[in-house]
């Protein structure tokens, strides 16, 4: 069950700010979906390993050789805000 406090916590974890009305609506949705998920509890998965992909792969590596890079202009061209070669972001207090 996701209560208001839990939703607050989730919004902070997911950096998603919802209006009060949105919160109410979504809380209801999420709890309904959670109920749906409970069907999984009935399946016995004791000793069953997780499945990540249909064909097993391992040691997929690349050699340490340089490839293409963006120019500074290409990188910064996407930015909402920039200054003298940097991405400009809201003040970060460490």
């Amino acid at each position, binding site marked *: 069950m996701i209560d208001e406090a839990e939703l607050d916590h989730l919004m902070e974890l997911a950096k998603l700010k919802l209006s009060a009305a949105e919160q109410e609506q979504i809380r209801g949705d999420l709890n309904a979906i959670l109920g749906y998920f409970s069907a999984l509890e009935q399946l016995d998965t004791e000793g069953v390993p997780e499945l990540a*992909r249909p064909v*097993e792969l391992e*040691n997929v590596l690349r050699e340490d050789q340089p490839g293409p890079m*963006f120019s500074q202009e290409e990188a910064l061209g996407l930015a909402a805000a920039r200054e003298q070669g*940097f*991405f400009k*972001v809201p003040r*970060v*207090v460490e």
Partner: protein
Amino acid sequence: MPEPLEAVIGLEVHLQLRTRTKMFSACRADYFSAEPNSFTDPLTLGLPGALPVINRQAVELAILFGLALGCQLEGRAQFHRKNYFYPDSPKNYQISQYDSPIGRSGHLDLGGRTVRVRRIHLEDDAGKLIHPPGEPVSLLDLNRAGMPLIELVTEPDLTSPLEARDFLYQLRSLAQTLGVSDANPEEGKMRADVNLSLRAPGAPLGTKVEIKNLNSFRSVQRALEYQTEVQRRQLRSGEAVRQATFGWDEAAGRTYLLRSKEQEADYRYFPEPDLPPLAITKPWIEKIRARLPELPSAKEARYLALGVRAAEAALLSQSPDLSSFLDRAIAAYPGPAQTLVNWLLGDVAGTLTASGIEIAASPLRPEHLAALAALVDRGEISGKMAKELLPEVMEGGDPQELVAARGLRAVRDETTLTEAIEATLREQRELAERVISGSNPKAIHALFGQVMRRTGGAAQPERLRDLLRARLERLAAERAERP
């Protein structure tokens, strides 16, 4: 009488690896001092649709490092996503390793004490934020984002701030020797966070605090000393230590609160779906083990066995460049290693420091240093002469050639020396008389000096001494025979 409190210290160290490209993309890694945001690609920027691909060299360097630390390596290593939002982290998750790191249960020996290494794992680095004073903005440079890092976590086995600092020195030298990392804090290639708690001996572990943003080994020591004092005072006054994370203000010499325990992050780790696991197999490990160079401890033992003084053996083993130079010189030199060490750590080091260059960048060749020392050993030139020649040898000059070119080879042949002796005896009749008559045997030293001066300092001292003594003895004997 207050109980003595002991410090319990653990370290979390990040080392930036010496690779040509970043951890998960082929973006070049040699961004140091380049224009900001000029070393990026889709993954570095966290663009929609970008995907990671593991850098083989980064994995192999981690395995190499793990081997040198005696870590358990074999098995399955998996990358995980560590989810958190921060502007310097373009994807807002770091690709790291959670419960299946590359290496576990290693150790590093600190002159008699063993510090256990809990784990080493690989992860990608974040970008760099700078905060211009007085402005409501921060500036972000992503050149560093995506660089490969090894994170090393120790058990809380360190017992003092000085020991912590020492550990970092040893770790740095190991990383440098192996070629795993340049490991210099000044370039941000080695960073350490520390955790500290105090307890009475034998008591259970106390509450620990974490200190971050330590930019030098000295800061590590100072910050630990500071917090130790703070905690000591707290505990003595009956106050409980609260779990917290601090930063270190080097200029002010104090810690400042970053977060208290209540704000601990939930990273929501899950296996990185974009990256299949790594199978660290025995054959792979053995192939990499063959790349292990001689470790500092083995090097130190070898120098000691060669008769090098203890303090100097320790120092040399910590410096990959100096020891590699020394080893090549030793290979070209028949005499005792200590002689070369004296040169290397004495006049050579002095000259290097004065000209501000490192041994690796110097034109001085190990074979030439060996030759110079050998010339002195064989008596062909004096020690004084060798010192005079050193500057040119350090510029790359071959001592044999220099000596030949200037005819500096100490004069040893009998004819030349005899001529000089005869000429001096004729000039210095009074001095000669004193020796021959036996009234002042010590005058031979003055005579010696005169002959030496006559040869322009080129006479080989021992030879000259022998010839001069022999001549004067014969003259004295002749006198005794005459009635």
